[in-house]
């Protein structure tokens, strides 16, 4: 009996001594929510952290403040030679251990991206077990520090919800994509395609012209902006729009929101988006369509010698949102008019976007994933080096578009004017 008691006691003591060593009370940690990375001035990198302020709240105050409401955030910017060095330096002035489990965005400035320093900088981050590989990665147009500082909850108090929902808008519009640290870091070394990352920027309202001649009947493609260029005023200070295109770990170009959608369509990742195209019969007026991907695109790749040929057919379907002209397009005879017009539009734009990427020699369309099937061994494939042959590829596109529903109206009628206005 004594022996058994001794054994049990020993077990308990061992547990007590060895058990708790890495236990950390949640209130002893500073939970970093955003990381911003710029080129430094006093040192190689300038790292910015954003974390919630350690304020007591909840039911203690009699003022009826709801628990969790009214969170405040603080930022800290440090120049350091590397990420790990920045961490250590941060702990010299923050009274809590930094915790990266809950990082929402890693924001990297365009400077760094263009200088090809991303690979170097991300190396310690991806090895750090406390940073999730699924953290979203953004490329900030100007200063990442500024972006991190100005990213504030809009219409709410919770910055994490803001970040989550902002990224979720990618699915609603297709104007950017939901891309993670994994997408960038893993694709850097991929022989199949080149990485992309979401473009982000602080919108200072520079494109918003207060006074000037009023808009005429010109036509602008929706979402054809880079991040930070949307003509708007107020709202949230930041925006995500378009994609950055990388060659290896060097950023070489950008895609607008519109081009991002086309890219999504070609990859089969497009969920839905609204398009406004000129009315085929009265080009000064618009037709609004909500477009979805009907099924995954058909991609065929074949080779003639070293030269690759790609045929891409995408299938779209959609609903009519509005027909401003009042022309009765809803009949089975007239629907194809809109369908063909939209197909031509998409085909033209797609060709432009593909050409743009070919000029950058970056296969962001993932054609490589189909091309690889033509090779018998992975060695042959790697020897062929798809990424450098992409610019030579001849790419044929085809678009198929069907209108499924016409909204709650099955008949458009013209607006009636009285008297001489006719």
């Amino acid at each position, binding site marked *: 009996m004594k022996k058994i008691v001794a054994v049990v006691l020993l077990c308990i003591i061992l547990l*007590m001594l060895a058990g708790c060593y890495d236990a950390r009370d949640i209130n002893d940690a500073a939970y970093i929510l955003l990381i911003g990375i710029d080129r430094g001035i006093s040192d190689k990198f300038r790292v910015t952290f954003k974390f919630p302020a350690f304020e007591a709240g909840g039911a203690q105050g009699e003022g009826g403040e709801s628990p*969790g409401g009214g969170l405040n955030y603080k930022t800290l910017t440090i120049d350091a030679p590397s990420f790990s060095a920045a961490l250590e330096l941060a702990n010299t002035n923050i009274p809590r251990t930094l915790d990266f489990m809950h990082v929402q965005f890693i924001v990297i400035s365009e400077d760094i991206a263009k200088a090809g320093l991303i690979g170097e900088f991300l190396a310690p981050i991806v090895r750090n077990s406390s940073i999730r590989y699924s953290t979203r990665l953004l490329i900030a147009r100007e200063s990442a520090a500024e972006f991190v500082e100005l990213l504030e909850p809009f219409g709410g108090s919770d910055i994490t919800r803001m970040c989550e929902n902002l990224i979720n808008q990618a699915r609603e519009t297709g104007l950017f994509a939901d891309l993670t640290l994994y997408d960038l870091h893993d694709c850097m070394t991929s022989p199949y395609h080149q990485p992309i990352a979401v473009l982000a920027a602080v919108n200072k309202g520079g494109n918003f012209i207060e006074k000037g001649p009023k808009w005429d009947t010109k036509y602008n493609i929706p979402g054809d902006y880079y991040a930070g260029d949307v003509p708007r005023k107020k709202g949230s200070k930041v925006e995500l729009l378009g994609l950055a295109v990388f060659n290896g770990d060097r950023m070489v170009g950008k895609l607008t929101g519109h081009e991002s959608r086309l890219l999504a369509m070609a990859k089969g990742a497009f969920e839905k988006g609204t398009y406004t195209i000129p009315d085929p019969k009265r080009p000064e007026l618009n037709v609004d369509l909500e477009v979805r991907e009907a099924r995954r695109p058909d991609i065929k790749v074949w080779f003639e010698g070293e030269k690759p040929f790609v045929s891409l057919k995408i299938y779209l379907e959609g609903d009519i949102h509005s027909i401003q002209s009042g022309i009765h397009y809803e009949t089975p005879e007239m629907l194809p008019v809109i369908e063909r017009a939209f197909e031509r539009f998409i085909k033209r734009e797609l060709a432009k976007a593909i050409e743009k990427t070919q000029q950058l020699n970056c296969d962001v369309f993932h054609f490589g994933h189909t091309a690889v099937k033509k090779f018998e061994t992975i060695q042959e494939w790697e020897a062929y080096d798809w990424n450098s042959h992409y610019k030579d590829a001849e790419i044929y596109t085809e678009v198929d578009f069907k209108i499924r529903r016409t909204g709650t109206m099955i008949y458009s009628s013209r607006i009636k004017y009285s008297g001489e206005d006719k």
Partner: protein
Amino acid sequence: MPNILRAVIDLFTYKPLQKFATEEYLGEESQPPKNGGGNDGQDNASEGIDWQKILKQADDKQVQQNNQGNCRTAGAGGQANGTVTGTVKPTVVIRRRNRQKKRAGQSSQWRGLEKRDVDLIKNGMVASNIDVNMEYIRQRFSVPKNQDIVIREFNVAKRLKAFLVFVDGMMDKTVINQFVLPQLMDEGNFKEFSQGDVMDYIIRNVISIYQVTRIKEYSRIIPQILNGVTALFVDGCSEALLIESRGFEKRNIEAPRTENVIRGPQEGFTENLRTNLSLLRKIIKSENLITEILPVGNKNRINCALVYLDDTADPELVQEVKRRIRNIKYDFVESSGMLEQLLEDNPFMLFPQVISTERPDRAASFIMEGQVVIVCEGSPFVMAVPVTFFHLLHSSEDTMLRWQYGTFIRLTRFIGVLIASLVPGLWMALVQFHSEMIPTPLLLSILKMREAVPFPVVVEVLLMEIAFELIREGGIRVPGLIGQTLGIIGALILGQAAVAAGLVSPILIIIVAITGIGNFVIPNYSLAMAIRIVRFFFIFMGAVLGFYGISVGLTILLVLTCSMKSFGVPFLAPFTPKTRRSSDLILRKPLYKELVAGDYMDTVSRRSGLYPKRGE
């Protein structure tokens, strides 16, 4: 390491003492019916009966009577007592002499007693001489010191000397006053009696009582008297007549207090053994329902009844239950709660190995499943054995409701058990080790709420859990009216004020509350108690080792539970070991698809009838 594990497992495995087990088993084999009579000498010796004293006094009285020719019983006792104190030494001398010439004829020393009477009384049998019997009874019950025992002397039909013995308050007065004494005393009733067995005549023609028994052995008569039966001794009869006259104050049948159901019978067991048995009989109207009554407790000898279905319950199980009950060496068994502790397989295990219920319908369903139900006098809770973990989580309502509802409430209950045992531990693990698992917005609000709390989470959790246990225990102990107020005050003060004072965070109140509610869901009180304790174990494991600790804790608990047995049936029976089982464990099926008993019960007749019991 295996050695350490074995040592730990050994610690939790109960092994009966070796000599205890074998000796008792043999003892039981040799004397199946308790009152064979062979053990009376030993019995009497242990009770320290002074034979010489009894015989001497009876003898004295006999001589006196013979001399005087009439009876003066009232004075005789006192007189005899007086003489005895003075004659202790001669008694010893007589005894010694007695031993020397055993064969020489014992009766020679007794002037007025027949040899046969002396032999009878020495063997614990009723003597035909009434004075001997009277003295024996007086000795056994310490009359007149013991004032509860009433010895009523009278003459049967004005001729034969007789007396009644009963315990005051345990019997129904009207039975004695109206149906026994008047009829025995009435000479008219004995007109036709000429010669022969007077006891037989009394039974057949005189007493109008529904149940009377003739018994020779004192070892059976005395317990019956203590149970409230009246014993009639008549001069010249070497038998006593036990007259069923039991009638004591008892509680009426009320709704069960601890096991409430919405749909189902609202009768509960009471403290009265007979009532409880009748409640069971009312539900199971089968001639195969067997009731065996065994006395328990070396000193207090309360009755407990084994109830089982002869054609269903495993005979070996019945044997085992009987063996355990007979071999209880404990002076005072008060109620089923104590009996449970004396019967269970492993006293060191946390989980109950016997299920107790207050509901006759539930007990009846146990009987139907092939379990043995033990009804104990003086307790409204009956026990059923063997039991598995799943029995403890069932409630009689599960089967009374349609199977969809039954399944739903049963699932709720399982979730309740998980919540009650694990939630505080998981919380500890989450906030100490795994903050990455908390959704960020929730984490931020927790941070904010905990910011003003000066204690580590362990202290916070223990503080609240202990406070909660206090409220719960206090709520049970305080008188009814204050009880509710206490609950409210406890909840208000400890919840609201503790948060306002910055002692604990609001989220912890939710944790403690949901744990408490989860615990209330458990239908079995013993299991609920076990889960209350298990909760602290998981708090410790969670605080020390996080999720890893909780999984280690779960494994340890599961291993121990697997090794547990209740009357030979593994505690997690239909799952480990896996047997063909009744589907009525967690999910329920429509009734017509369900088997009543699982294979692990090893019942005599299985539903299919294709599998005869082993060895038959």
